[in-house]
């Protein structure tokens, strides 16, 4: 029982990380708190729904191909956002960022409702992943384990990109000292757009991967953005490892809390968040994408 709850926590933590990573990446470089991140996640889920039907419903490759293609489309939409709206508000005050990104949230929500209607849709789970690994009396559901594995691959890929590629060097330079990077002739705008594309891709990926495991509807955006923020606050906005740690802490605390203190499990998470904020650790500062 304890073991299963721990695994449950890990699984939820990974999903949370996938959502939060894009948010924190974008913030780290552009200092924009992108409230529309949840909208990109939602678009990822809806696009996966459409693509799965076209490609090969129920199959493993059909699902993953849909998720990746869906995320690529979301990434393009993210670039569109960046070029048309967000590019104009870098350096503006927080309120302006809030207004612009929330406007995007509302626009996306209405467009999604126009296209897919207000009812929830179900993204079919690949048949191969519908079952569970049963050890004795313990059931370990297969789908979240695979999502967890996919999440690990993404984490490793991100670390590789950030540390071992030129793009990663540029990214780190942009995060550490924007002015200096610009003086050295690095095209700041390109970096911002590229980071936004990457962040949107991650959001789309997270949305697509999680889609078969829950309800998908036009209100998914706000549900997601709130949990992503909790994770980012605990981990430190802009800090990728912090986001990973924060996500796992939230996931595991919640799962364990449900078992031991069912009435308190949500409170526990906010207590941790408060403790982190009070403890002046990374939470308030906002670290970099290191």
């Amino acid at each position, binding site marked *: 029982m304890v073991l299963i709850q721990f695994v449950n926590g890990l699984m939820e933590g990974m999903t949370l990380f996938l959502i939060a990573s894009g948010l924190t990446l974008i913030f780290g470089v552009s200092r924009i708190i992108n409230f529309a991140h949840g909208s990109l996640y939602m678009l990822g889920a809806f696009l996966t729904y459409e693509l799965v039907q076209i490609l090969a419903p129920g199959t493993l490759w059909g699902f993953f191909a849909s998720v990746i293609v869906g995320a690529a489309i979301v990434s393009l939409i993210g670039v569109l956002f960046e070029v048309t709206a967000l590019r104009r508000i870098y350096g503006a005050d927080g309120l302006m960022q809030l207004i612009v990104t929330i406007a995007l949230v509302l626009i996306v929500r209405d467009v999604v409702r126009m296209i897919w209607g207000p009812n929830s849709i179900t993204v079919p789970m690949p048949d191969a992943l519908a079952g569970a690994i049963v050890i004795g009396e313990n059931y370990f559901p297969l789908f979240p384990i695979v999502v967890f594995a996919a999440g690990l691959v993404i984490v490793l890929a991100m670390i590789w990109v950030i540390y071992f590629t030129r793009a990663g060097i540029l990214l780190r330079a942009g995060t550490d000292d924007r002015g200096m990077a610009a003086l050295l002739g690095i095209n700041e705008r390109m970096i911002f757009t590229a980071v936004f594309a990457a962040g949107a891709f991650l959001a789309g990926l997270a949305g697509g991967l999680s889609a078969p495991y829950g309800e998908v509807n036009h209100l998914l955006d706000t549900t997601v953005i709130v949990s992503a923020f909790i994770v980012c606050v605990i981990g430190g906005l802009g800090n990728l490892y912090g986001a990973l740690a924060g996500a796992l802490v939230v996931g595991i605390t919640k799962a364990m809390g449900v*078992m031991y203190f069912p009435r308190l499990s949500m409170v526990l998470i906010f207590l941790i968040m408060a403790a982190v904020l009070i403890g002046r650790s990374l939470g308030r500062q906002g670290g970099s994408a290191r």
Partner: protein
Amino acid sequence: MLDLKKGGLAALAMAMLAGGHAVAADAPVKIGFAGDLTGACAALTEDELNAVKIGVDELNAKGGILGRKVELVIRDSQTKPDEGAKVARELIVDEKIDVLTGVCSSAVMLAESAVSGELKVPFYATIGSTQRANIELYQPYFWQAQANATMEAYAAAEYVAKKAEWKTIATMGSDYEWGHTSVAAFSERLKKLRPDVTIIDPIFPKVGETAMAPYITTALNTKPDAVFAALFGGSLGSLIKQGQGFGFFQRTNLVTLMTVDTLQSMGSAMPASNVYGIARAPFFALEQTPEVKAFIEKYRAAYKEYPTDWSINGYDGLMFYAAAAEHAKSVAPDAIIKAISEISYDGLRGKGLKVRAFDGQMNAPSYVGKATKVPEYDFPILTEIEKFPGEALMVSEDAIAAARKAAKK
């Protein structure tokens, strides 16, 4: 500019002078629909409104209510209580509506009900179903044209009690008023019917929770024969989808809210067995009278989908109001309120629907059945359905009086 204003005022004054009964006879009967067209309740409210529109057209085709044309005035309460109260007030004061309806969220419903009570305009609910509107927050211009939340939980308990092989029941509810009262009502009724059953202490996931795995594990850990879950929307969908990975539907049974829209959105993801649903008005379970068949056909032709529980109740609620108005020969608020407890109405959900004057509760039925995939529909439906008549589920007047007294303290 000033002249124009004067002219307008003069015209208004003349209209008022000419007013009185002569104008009223030709004026339309105005139905104020202050519904949650956006926000969490949007999907349900849209289904309801679609059916109400059909109802209004039908009434007008037959010459309206009392020979007066029926007009629908629609406002969006955005699933927000303060917004609901605002638009309800606007509809009553500015639009001079004759009756208010449309609301879905319980919180918005209570806000609108307060306005209806204050301004003394009839208000009826066909989606929002909190029994608080019948008990401590009851006001005499309100009626509930469907089973309230407590009645539904009672229906579930009645159904579960008949499963002799079920000995241990786990309970779960959304962590707000509806989840808590549903679980409490279910447990209370089941304990009475089956003293031998063990009911596990409830767990309450937060509203809108979609990561259900920890709750599933906790519930399954008690080795229940069935889990009663007062969940809806995203939480319910997640429970069903995520439960499959835990062998939930091999190891236990789920008893939960299962209206037609949920059945449709679950589609092929619905487990093959072990899911039991409580419904309000599933079209496939209604007695297929010519009226029911005609309504389903008309709805499908207009909206290319089957009517949901919300559609059926929205239509039934409007037609009940029309019947009350015809009986009262008036749409004056007090005449309507008197009429609703005098008439017996035959609607889509069956014959003899009545409203109890004491608390404005209609003796509306609840349906409980087993979710099953069938070849006729591309979504699962409920089979082995039992229809529980409202009378058997309604809380007694004495109990309500006691609850009202307790709430005042």
